[in-house]
């Protein structure tokens, strides 16, 4: 079996990317909340920021584990992917596809206008 290395994402992909300042708890929460598209009320942001700090302090214990040369484990087992044959089948159709949607027009979903 040829090992499939899961190389560092940070060094390979993020290269020139500069992580925004996360100097303070508030900065960190604001940054990840923006990435995750979740609006937080100020008191909520304060509470979650406090929790995040505690949890991150707790998971610091992982640093003590020597993981040099340990291949990250993504799935249990090492079996290969089972594939499907290239057979087409009708889907739900537009009416069912959009049945639960908050806003639709002519079978399409509607969102606030995106410019560019």
């Amino acid at each position, binding site marked *: 079996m040829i090992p499939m290395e899961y190389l560092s994402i940070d060094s390979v992909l993020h290269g020139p990317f500069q992580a925004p300042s996360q100097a303070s708890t508030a900065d960190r929460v604001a940054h990840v909340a923006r990435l995750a598209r979740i609006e937080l009320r100020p008191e909520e942001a304060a509470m979650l920021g406090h929790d995040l700090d505690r949890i991150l302090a707790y998971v610091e214990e992982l640093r003590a584990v020597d993981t040099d040369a340990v291949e990250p484990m993504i799935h249990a087992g090492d079996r290969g992917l089972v594939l499907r044959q290239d057979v087409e089948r*009708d889907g*739900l159709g537009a009416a069912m596809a959009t049945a639960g949607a908050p806003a639709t027009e*002519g079978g399409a*979903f509607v969102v606030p206008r*995106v410019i560019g």
Partner: protein
Amino acid sequence: MAWQGVIGLEVHAQLRTRSKIFCACPTTFGAAPNAHTCPVCLGHPGALPVLNERAVRLAVVAGLALDCAIATRSRFDRKNYFYPDLPKGYQITQVTAPLCTGGHLDVATAAGVVRGRIHHIHLEEDAGKSIHDASPAGTLVDLNRAGTPLIEIVGEPDLRSADDAVAWLRELRAILRHTGVCDGNMEEGSLRCDANVSVHRPNAPFGTRCEIKNLNSFRAVRDAIAHEIERQQAVIDAGGVVLQQTRLWDAERSRTLPMRSKEEAHDYRYFPEPDLLPLHVAPELVAELRAALPELPAARRARWSAAWGVPAAAAAVLCDEPVRADAFERALGAGPAADLAAAFALFVTGQVQAAHQRSARTDADVDAALPVLLDVCARWVQGRLTNKMLADVLQSAFGGDAALGAELERALAQVGAVVTDAGALAPTVDAVLAEHADQAARYRAGHTPVLGFFVGQVMRRLGGRGDAQAVQRLLQQRLDQ
């Protein structure tokens, strides 16, 4: 020292599968909005991706055709971002361990052979479509295209000019078409190209690159790269600094413009896709696909050149589209017509293509008519059709309503045979000479170019059906008498 452009292309090619990459919805283009969707490509809660086997085979074929190494184990990753046409909020792609790595594609250019290396080829799913200007209610989202299988072919920055880039892309498209991987239709978006462009002085490090998107024709590729190189040179010459940006090609105004920078646009938070186990590709499958690899366009062109002397430019045009190239070979067969191959190639890429472009006929119609066109070509080459007759035949046939082959047969019958017999030509020649006795006198006084005038007059009276050489011979004979 002059500035030099440095270009690497990233090409997205839609794989020719019947169903989507992770679900069984059809990949047909042009259906009503969301007609071809299911819980998987709608990103419903609980829906899971199941990889299409044919998509894997086609991606491996592309890798083999481009001399890549095929990974026996590769992996899918999630690329996370929010956009309405990305239903799951992430795109399933391959980042940490792609299916094909390395490889290269050589193209012949005026300056010699240019090698464009390939960094890797990976499988991924396409996004849906956002339609911005159709409704006052807002942007409309159609997910029919979401989940269409793509490969992304990531080229190294080995190309040095806009023309090289176009030549490389054209050759890539021919390969993808010959191998049945992709139909290469840039108008419908089945082949899409982004270009990474920077400039530097030879032997200096590469400059900062910009990625140019929205290149949906060869012309756009050429013009956008040429303009971007000029733009970057101008920035540097004015003492400025090129910023790393994603820019959009505006074909109408012939310029590239920076895309509105999206906040955190870079942080895609990639991680391995937990819903898909590693993709194992058996060496036996790779061997099987390698053995079944069809002749690639470069080899085909070389064979045509060696066997038939088909000129390179005509061969390149014909081999752009394997269906055309196959029809060409079929029409030619293995028989005596092979002697005609070079002339036929020039004929098809010259007169026939010109007539085709003026008409509304489909490629398939023309391809099906190639055997009759070969007959037309043979008659013309052998002098059984004059240039005028040929032009009439093509114009009449391409303008007709029936299949091109049938129209050609009809037009050939109508145009009749060329008149070569001196006896049949004599009355017309004599009549012309009699009418233009003054010109005849001039000829006899040594103004030999007047012969051309007489030929023209005779041909006109014969409706272009006279054999030009026979007419000329007879005229000279009479005048020299």
